[in-house]
């Protein structure tokens, strides 16, 4: 991949900042998301909560379904491929997807290797639980990072844990002396040049969003307060009582995340939130897929 193309792909993520990316399964849902103020949508046949409920192998969505969503909205459209599934990623590139999510929500196709994302023209976003994982994905060519969280649960605890970990490790790196960075890179199992970048700049070299378990405006604001630059909401919207209203409230909560008065108003009368499952109650931890 040309360096120019990689820069342009990182730049698109910069335009998404301060925004909410919503999981949608139909053109109608995509239009509801766009009307509520989503800055992008993630097209997938089954949202994570349903994938979790159905069990079995979960794969890339039908390209026809993704194309119907591309035709329904003017905002960027993302879609997921399985970890390591080069062919699924090529298919998504062929239908001119705006961003590919190489995602642990789907069943991994490769339990060792991630996709060499630098070999593609379209951008990739990848999940991470800590700084080392984030930098390994950036090293492979990811143009955007998100926390893994625990998708489809409505429980924000893992997204919080991952964001805290990543931000804490970034802060720690900035305090290291130059000669300590080699050892830090070894400990993090991350490319040295990227470790150097983080130590110098105090931030990831790409945009960092929160994902996994965000269900309320307050959850979204919490992730922003912890340092997220934007938020993915999966099952939280279309598994709730009033998706349009909740979607709109989460978008506004991300813009006004420091304004508690606004957040209080936005949290009123949203109808039922998705039921949710606590992390102790689930047997499948999607976040552990792909290291």
């Amino acid at each position, binding site marked *: 991949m040309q360096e120019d193309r990689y*820069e342009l792909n990182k730049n698109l993520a910069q335009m998404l900042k301060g925004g909410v990316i919503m999981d949608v399964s139909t053109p109608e849902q995509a239009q509801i998301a766009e009307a509520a103020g989503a800055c992008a949508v993630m097209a997938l046949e089954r949202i994570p909560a349903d994938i979790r409920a159905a069990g079995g192998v979960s794969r890339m969505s039908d390209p026809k379904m993704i194309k119907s969503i591309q035709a329904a909205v003017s905002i960027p459209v993302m879609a997921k491929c399985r970890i390591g599934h080069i062919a699924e990623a090529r298919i998504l590139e062929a239908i001119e997807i705006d961003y590919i999510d190489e995602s642990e929500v789907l069943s991994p196709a490769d339990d060792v290797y991630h996709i060499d994302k630098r070999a593609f023209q379209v951008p990739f976003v990848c999940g991470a639980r800590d700084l080392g994982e984030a930098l390994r994905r950036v090293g492979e060519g990811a143009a955007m990072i998100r926390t893994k969280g625990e998708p489809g649960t409505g429980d924000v605890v893992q997204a919080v844990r991952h964001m805290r970990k990543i931000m804490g490790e970034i802060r720690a790196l900035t305090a290291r002396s130059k000669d300590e960075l080699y050892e830090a890179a070894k400990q993090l199992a991350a490319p040295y040049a990227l470790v150097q970048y983080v130590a110098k700049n105090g931030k990831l070299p790409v945009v960092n969003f929160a994902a996994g378990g965000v269900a309320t405006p307050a959850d979204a604001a919490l992730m922003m307060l912890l340092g997220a630059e934007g938020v993915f909401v999966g099952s939280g919207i279309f598994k709730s009582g009033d998706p349009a209203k909740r979607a709109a409230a989460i*978008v506004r909560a991300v813009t006004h995340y420091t304004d508690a008065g606004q957040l209080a108003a936005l949290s009123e009368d949203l109808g039922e939130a998705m039921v949710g499952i606590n992390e102790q109650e689930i047997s499948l931890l999607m976040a552990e897929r792909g290291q």
Partner: protein
Amino acid sequence: MSAARVGVLALQGAFREHRNMLSALGAESMEIRRRGDFARGVDGLIIPGGESTVIGMLLAEYGLLAPIRAAVRAGLPVFGTCAGLILLSKHIRTPHGTARGPLGEMDIVTQRNAYGRQLGSFRAETRFAGVGDIAAVFIRAPHVVRVAPHVEVLARVDGKIVAVRQGHLLATAFHPELTSDPRIHQYFLTLIETHRAVLGPCCREAATKN
């Protein structure tokens, strides 16, 4: 005269990049999210890149459209990049037809997503009138399809209009804030200074009173 204070609309998108650029140039900046932020007074306003649908919707909901329009008419300098260009355009063209721009203060017609999806995003060299050769970054960018006679075309790429100025209003289809070249922001700061000199020190108050 004190350093210019520039408001940066911070509803969604790449507003921090603009603030970094302004601070590198020694200008003061503040984030504008609500009507109250705007009422505190600014010498200029930047509308950043992001999703124009999202920013337009939030502008209307948080009561910012009317005060910004009034301020523009009172002479407040405004600089829009990408989504900002779209929001400032009088007319916006999409595959589904033509709509009025939410702010609509520039007499131009703009085509949204003029270069297609992300695969169509690109970087190009262009000559910017009054500045010189620059590298322009286009991300799912619009371009201007028509301008009124009093609108000055500042830059073109492949014959398409990508930067315009209408008096105190400046707009680009590309993102100077994503490069390390501060000249376009400097151009805007100069535009602010010129207008402050003409309008006098009272302009900050008058321009944002509504």
